C-alpha cells in the first residue's frame, strides 16, 4: 500500500473536481462524495501507518523527475517515513470528523457544496504537503493550503469582518512565506537539490559553511512562523476565527497551522547543524506560547480563546523542536523532537475536539461570547462532557493524552531554567483559561435566559465526531507512555531513537501545576470565592494590556500598515501625476505629431498629387485651344504647319542659316493666332448663349 501513497492526496482532489464540475447542485451527494473520499484516504493512511511500523528505518521514497537538468533536478514524489505516516493519520482522522460534523453544522448554508469542495481542496493540499519528498513540492502545497485557508476563512465573505480576516491571514502568512522562499533559494543555490535526503546529507557532511546553514534554517523557519502563527506573525490566527467553526477546527487548529511544526520537524537535520538557528526557534516558540496563553486568560470570545490556545500550544511544539535542535547541535540527548511531534498529534485531536465542541455550543446559542452562556451542561449532554475531556487533556491531567505529550515537553525544557519556568507557567495558564471557559460556558446559572431556553443538543452527525475525538483525546497519548518499550519515541524520532524514562518528579510537578490552574478557575468562576472583577480591577494595567492582546494589531497598524498605506498613497500620487502624466503626455504628443503629419499630408502629399493634376490641367487649358471643333481651323493648322515646315527647310537647306528666325517668328504668329481663335470662340459661345435666351 505504501507505494500508492501518492493516491491519498488525489482522492480529495477527485472529490473537489467532481463537486465543482458535476455534483454541486446535489448538495447531499457532494457531501457524501467528499466524506467517502476522505474515509478512503483515512483507511489508506491507517494501512500505511501499520506498514510503516514494520519498517521504521527504511523510509519509502518514490519520485518522478519532471525537470531533469545535469546540475539540477526538480522532483514530484512521496516520502513515507514514520513522521509522514503519523501526520497522514492525524490529518485524515480530523478531516473525516470535521467533514461529517460539517454536514450538520453547515446545513441550510447557500454554499453548502462549495464548502465541501473547499474542504476537499484543502485536504488535498494538506496531504500533498505531508507526503512531499522535497522542499520544492512542499512549498507548492504550502501555498495551496494558504489559498484554501484564505477561501475558507472568507467563506462567509458577506461579513466584512470575515473578508478582512481572510485578507489579513493571507497577507500575514505571505510575509513568512517570503522568508521560506528565500530559504528555498538558498537551499537551491548552495545545496543544488531540493530533495530532503540530498539536502540533509549535504547539511550533515559539513561542506556548507555554518553561517549559510544557520541563515537557511532560519529562513525556512520563517515559513513556519507565518503558517503556524508564531510571534511576531501570530496576529492572523485569532481573526481567522471568522470562518465557519469546522474550518477553524480543521485548518486553524489541527492541520494547517501544524504544517509549520511539521516543516520544522521535517527539516530537523538542517536545524541540528546550527545551534543558533535552533535557539532562535526555541525562543520564538517560548515567546509565542507565553504571550498567547496570557492573552487567552482574559478573552471572552469562545473561539478566540481557543485560537490563542492554539497559538500557545503551537509555540510549545516549536519550542520543543528548537530545544531538541539546540541540544543535539551541542551533542546532548533530548526528548524534544519526539515531544514536539507527539504533542502535534495529541493536540490535533483534542484541539479539533475543542473547536468542534465550541461549534456545537455556538450552533445551540448563536453567540460567541462566553459571558452570555452558562449552565449549558444541563442541556448539552454530549457536547459538555466531551468538551471537558478535551479541556482536561489540554490542561495536562493524568492520564489523558495531553498529559503525556506535555510532560515530554516539560522534560525537554527541564535543562534550561528559563524554559522550564516558562513551560510550567504556560501549562498553568492553559489549565486556567480552559477551565475558565468550561465553567463560564457549562456551569453556573445561565446569564442569558433567552439564549439558554433556545439551546439544544446538536444533531447526531455533529455529536458523534465529538465522541470519536474524545476517545482519541483520552487514548492517543497512550502510544507514548514512557513505560512502553517500543512506543511513539522509538517510532518517530530523528537521529537515534530516544528511550523515554518516566521522570516522576516532573510528572508530579506538571500535574500539580495543571490541577492548580483548574482549581484557581474553579474558585474564581464556579465558587466565586475570588472575584474575577476584583482581580481585573487590582491588576488593571495588566488586564487592559492582555485584553487588548498586547496591542499587537495597533502596533502593526501604526508601524507597518500606516506607513505602507502612506507609501501607497504617495505611489498613487506618483502614479496619477507622473505615470498617467507620461501616458497622457505621450497621447498629447501623438496628437500634436499627427496634426503636423495631417498638415504635411494635406499640403505636401496631397499637394503633390493635386499639383500633378493642376499642372496637367493648366497645360491642357492652353493646349485645348487647339481643339476648337471647327474643321476649317484644323485644315488651316495643317496648311500652316506645311508652310512652316517648308519655310524651315528652305531656311536651313537653301539659305544655310543656323537660326531659323523667320520660322520662329512664324510659330509665334501662329500661337498668337491660336489664342485669338480661343478668344473668338469664347465670344462666339457667349453670343450663342444669349441668342439661345432670346
Amino acid at each position, binding site marked *: 500500500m505504501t507505494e500508492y501513497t501518492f493516491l491519498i492526496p488525489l482522492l480529495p482532489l477527485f472529490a473537489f473536481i467532481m463537486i465543482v464540475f458535476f455534483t454541486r447542485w446535489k448538495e447531499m451527494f457532494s457531501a457524501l462524495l467528499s466524506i467517502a473520499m476522505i474515509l478512503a484516504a483515512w483507511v489508506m493512511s491507517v494501512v500505511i501507518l501499520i506498514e510503516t511500523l514494520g519498517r521504521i528505518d527504511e523510509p519509502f521514497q518514490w519520485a518522478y523527475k519532471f525537470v531533469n537538468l545535469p546540475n539540477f533536478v526538480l522532483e514530484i514524489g512521496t516520502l513515507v517515513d514514520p513522521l509522514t505516516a503519523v501526520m497522514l493519520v492525524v490529518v485524515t482522522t480530523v478531516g473525516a470528523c470535521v467533514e461529517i460534523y460539517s454536514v450538520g453544522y453547515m446545513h441550510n448554508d447557500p454554499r453548502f457544496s462549495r464548502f465541501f469542495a473547499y474542504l476537499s481542496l484543502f485536504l488535498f493540499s494538506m496531504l500533498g504537503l505531508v507526503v512531499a519528498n522535497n522542499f520544492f513540492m512542499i512549498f507548492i502545497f504550502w501555498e495551496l493550503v494558504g489559498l484554501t485557508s484564505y477561501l475558507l476563512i472568507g467563506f462567509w465573505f458577506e461579513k466584512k469582518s470575515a473578508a478582512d480576516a481572510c485578507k489579513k491571514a493571507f497577507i500575514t502568512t505571505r510575509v513568512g512565506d517570503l522568508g521560506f522562499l528565500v530559504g528555498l533559494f538558498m537551499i537551491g543555490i548552495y545545496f543544488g537539490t531540493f530533495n530532503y535526503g540530498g539536502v540533509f546529507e549535504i547539511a550533515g557532511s559539513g561542506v556548507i559553511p555554518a553561517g549559510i546553514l544557520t541563515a537557511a534554517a532560519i529562513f525556512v523557519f520563517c515559513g513556519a512562523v507565518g503558517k503556524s502563527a508564531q510571534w511576531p506573525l501570530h496576529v492572523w490566527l485569532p481573526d481567522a476565527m471568522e470562518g465557519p467553526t469546522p474550518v477553524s477546527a480543521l485548518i486553524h487548529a489541527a492541520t494547517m497551522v501544524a504544517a509549520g511544526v511539521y516543516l520544522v520537524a521535517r527539516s530537523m537535520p538542517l536545524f541540528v547543524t546550527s545551534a543558533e538557528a535552533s535557539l532562535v526557534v526555541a525562543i520564538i516558540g517560548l515567546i509565542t506560547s507565553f504571550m498567547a496563553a496570557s492573552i487567552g486568560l482574559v478573552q471572552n470570545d469562545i473561539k478566540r480563546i481557543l485560537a490563542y490556545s492554539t497559538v500557545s500550544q503551537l509555540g510549545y511544539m516549536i519550542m520543543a523542536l528548537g530545544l531538541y535542535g539546540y541540544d543535539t547541535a551541542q551533542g546532548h540527548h533530548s526528548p524534544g523532537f519526539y515531544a514536539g511531534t507527539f504533542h502535534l498529534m495529541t493536540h490535533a485531536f483534542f484541539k479539533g475536539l475543542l473547536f468542534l465542541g465550541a461549534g456545537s455550543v455556538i450552533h445551540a446559542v448563536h453567540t460567541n461570547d462566553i459571558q452570555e452562556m452558562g449552565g449549558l451542561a444541563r442541556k448539552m449532554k454530549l457536547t459538555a462532557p466531551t468538551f471537558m475531556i478535551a479541556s482536561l487533556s489540554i490542561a495536562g491531567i493524568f492520564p489523558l493524552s495531553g498529559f503525556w505529550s506535555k510532560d515530554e515537553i516539560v522534560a525537554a525544557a527541564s535543562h534550561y531554567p528559563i524554559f522550564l519556568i516558562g513551560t510550567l507557567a504556560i501549562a498553568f495558564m492553559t489549565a486556567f483559561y480552559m477551565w475558565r471557559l468550561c465553567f463560564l460556558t457549562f456551569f453556573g446559572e445561565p446569564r442569558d435566559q433567552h439564549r439558554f431556553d433556545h439551546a439544544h443538543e446538536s444533531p447526531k452527525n455533529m455529536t458523534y465526531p465529538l465522541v470519536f475525538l474524545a476517545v482519541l483525546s483520552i487514548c492517543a497519548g497512550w502510544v507514548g507512555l514512557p513505560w512502553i518499550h517500543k512506543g511513539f519515541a522509538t517510532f518517530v524520532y530523528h537521529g537515534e531513537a530516544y528511550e523515554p524514562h518516566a521522570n516522576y518528579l516532573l510528572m508530579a510537578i506538571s500535574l500539580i501545576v495543571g490541577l492548580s490552574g483548574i482549581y484557581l478557575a474553579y474558585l474564581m468562576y464556579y465558587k466565586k470565592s475570588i472575584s474575577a472583577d476584583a482581580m481585573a480591577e487590582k491588576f488593571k494595567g495588566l488586564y487592559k494590556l492582555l485584553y487588548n492582546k498586547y496591542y499587537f494589531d495597533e502596533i502593526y497598524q501604526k508601524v507597518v500598515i500606516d506607513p505602507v498605506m502612506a507609501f501607497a498613497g504617495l505611489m498613487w500620487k506618483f502614479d496619477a501625476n507622473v505615470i498617467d502624466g507620461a501616458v497622457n503626455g505621450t497621447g498629447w504628443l501623438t496628437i500634436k505629431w499627427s496634426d503636423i503629419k495631417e498638415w504635411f499630408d494635406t499640403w505636401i502629399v496631397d499637394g503633390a498629387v493635386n499639383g500633378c493634376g493642376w499642372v496637367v490641367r493648366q497645360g491642357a487649358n492652353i493646349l485645348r485651344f487647339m481643339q476648337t471643333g471647327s474643321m476649317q481651323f484644323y*485644315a488651316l493648322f495643317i496648311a500652316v504647319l506645311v508652310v512652316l515646315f517648308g519655310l524651315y527647310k528652305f531656311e536651313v537647306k537653301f539659305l544655310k542659316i543656323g537660326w531659323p528666325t523667320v520660322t520662329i517668328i512664324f510659330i509665334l504668329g501662329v500661337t498668337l493666332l491660336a489664342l485669338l481663335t480661343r478668344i473668338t470662340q469664347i465670344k462666339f459661345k457667349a453670343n450663342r448663349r444669349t441668342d439661345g435666351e432670346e
Partner: protein
Amino acid sequence: MMLPYLALAAILFSIGLFGVLTRRNTIGILMSLELMFNAVNINFVTFNKFIWTDGLVGQMFAIFIVVVAAAEAVVGLAIVLLLYRNWQGIDTDHVSVMKW
C-alpha cells in the same frame, strides 16, 4: 518653261485653300477641295512633261486622283446629307461640337 504651269497650279491651289478655309457652306468646301486636287493634278502632269519624261507616271497619278476625288466627293456629299438631317443645315459652324 514650266513656270506658267506651276504658277497656274499654285494660284489654283491657293484659291482652293482659301475656299476650304473660309467657306461656311460644306458644299462650297467640297468644291474648293476639287480645285486643290486639280492644282495637284496640273503639277503632276507638268512634272511628268518637263522633268520625268521616261513614262506616263504623272498622268497616271492624275487620273488616279480624279477617281479618288470622285469617291471622296461621294463620301463628302453623304456626310453633308447626314449633317443636314441632324442639324437642318450644312454650315460648318453647326458641326463644331467635337471640342473641349
